[in-house]
């Protein structure tokens, strides 16, 4: 698949560190799928679809900074949608989002609402103004927030909110965010025997996005995050590298 040219039609400042880039092309996609966004002359990076026609980007380095410099009317190359995406199931679901991990979960919340599924979202961020897509989650159901500095909602990690919930109330649990956080969610699900009912969206170094290069493979299954994921059931992640280590661009293991 060759990159398609996509013109930026609108840029929305979501939080101090994230912007949403709306594109002039609508992908027939599932929540949780992603695209490879080519910022020409710089790099190509994986980005979840936060809408069928948009990506929501946190500025963290070279490529994301270059993307932040683009204006309405500029264009990027887009390959996708890629990956499996989340599978909706049950009558009542729980979403646990940390930081920009809210990007693939917001469309999932909306899709669930449209299918009359009850949605509860736990949304975390460093600070109150970094909470992403609060309105979208609220529009889709119930929402509770947590911030590291306590500026909005619960003070502390978003997983702190789980202590007050009974996981058994939910048919399925979806999570995307920093892996430490997701690791915690998996642990709690394990305690509650809920592992088969969890779905996690992983962030791994993606190079080819085509299931060929092997950069994104996880231990011990050898599954590829780019095409076999990025969403995996907790079953696959239990006793894996998940929450413990990942690999960098060269393939070296890095502790999380």
């Amino acid at each position, binding site marked *: 698949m060759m990159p398609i040219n996509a013109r930026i039609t609108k840029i929305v400042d979501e939080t101090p560190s994230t912007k949403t880039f709306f594109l002039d092309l609508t992908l027939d996609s599932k929540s949780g799928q992603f695209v490879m966004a080519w910022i020409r002359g710089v790099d190509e990076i994986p980005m979840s679809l936060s809408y069928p026609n948009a990506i929501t980007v946190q500025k963290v380095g070279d490529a994301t900074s270059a993307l932040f410099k683009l204006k309405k009317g500029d264009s990027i190359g887009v390959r996708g949608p890629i990956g499996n995406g989340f599978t909706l199931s049950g009558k009542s679901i729980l979403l646990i989002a940390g930081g920009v991990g809210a990007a693939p979960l917001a469309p999932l919340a909306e899709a669930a609402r449209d299918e009359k599924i009850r949605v509860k979202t736990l949304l975390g961020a460093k600070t109150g103004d970094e909470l992403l897509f609060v309105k979208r989650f609220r529009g889709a159901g119930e929402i509770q927030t947590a911030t590291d500095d306590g500026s909005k909602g619960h003070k502390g990690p978003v997983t702190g909110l789980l202590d007050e919930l009974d996981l058994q109330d939910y048919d399925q649990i979806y999570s995307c965010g920093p892996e430490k956080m997701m690791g915690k969610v998996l642990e709690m699900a394990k305690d509650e025997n809920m592992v088969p009912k969890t779905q996690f969206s992983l962030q791994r170094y993606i190079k080819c996005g085509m299931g*060929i290069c092997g950069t994104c493979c996880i231990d011990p299954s050898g599954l590829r995050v780019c095409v076999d994921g990025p969403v995996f059931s907790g079953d696959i992640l239990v006793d894996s590298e998940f929450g413990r280590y990942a690999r960098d661009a060269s393939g070296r293991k890095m502790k999380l």
Partner: protein
Amino acid sequence: MDLTIDLSGLKLKNPTILAAGILGTSAASLKRVAQHGAGAVVTKSIGASPREGHPGPVLVKTERGFLNAMGLPNPSYHEFVRELETVKGDVPVIASIFGSNAKEFEEVALGLSKARPDAFELNLSCPHAKGYGATLGTDPLKVKEIIKSVKSVVDVPVWAKLPPVANIVELGLAAQEGGADAVVVINTIPAMGIDIESGCPILGNKVGGLSGAAIKPVALRCVYELCATLSIDVIGVGGISTWKDAVEFIMAGASAVEIGSAVHDDINVFRNVSKGITQFLEKRQCSLEDIRGVAQK
């Protein structure tokens, strides 16, 4: 039907091998490919120091094939040796290595030897990493020298992976004289694409290598000419995705085939190719040996 082969002294349960640089970054991934039917697996090419590789896009699929310029990303042998140790088990594991000269090849080979790979494949053919790969591999003298060096420090078979050049036989002979136990042809062909919307080359590195179905006829010609001349094993690679492709290579004289890009469409390609070959041989009531090299006649 028995598809086992003896390949430069290694015993393979079938003649399909995972090509270098494909799903070869971790032990888990290599094992998964073996579980999908590969008769042997080759690791990602490993060098002396860590490399992050080229900026993206590193791989795109065009209408006619894949273009890639990964840039030899690898964690170095220091790190990879631990990974390699844990691959051992199901099928033979071949360590692909690269270096900028004979000494560096030696260093990497020695470094990885602790993990006891079943063979080494020397990457003398990557077309888009300056100073490595094809930069050396197009020079018969260097080919011979590098193979000799590595042979002098390891006690397992050494395969030489060569680039697609017109005078492939000259390179093959150099490899054989250097003591290679097998030659592997071909690596990707230098190529590129341009995004006409932006006028930008489509790969981050601008130029890269072409792989996939498009290059099959080119690879087949190299295999055919090498098999006509060399006495060591020739392993075919380039554009193989079906059992028919594999049979063409075997009829050209290849001892085995490596498969790369085709994992994109189906990671089960190894099993499917073996199954297809088996059915073909059963229908003809003949063995793998019976069809090997028939096109040479």
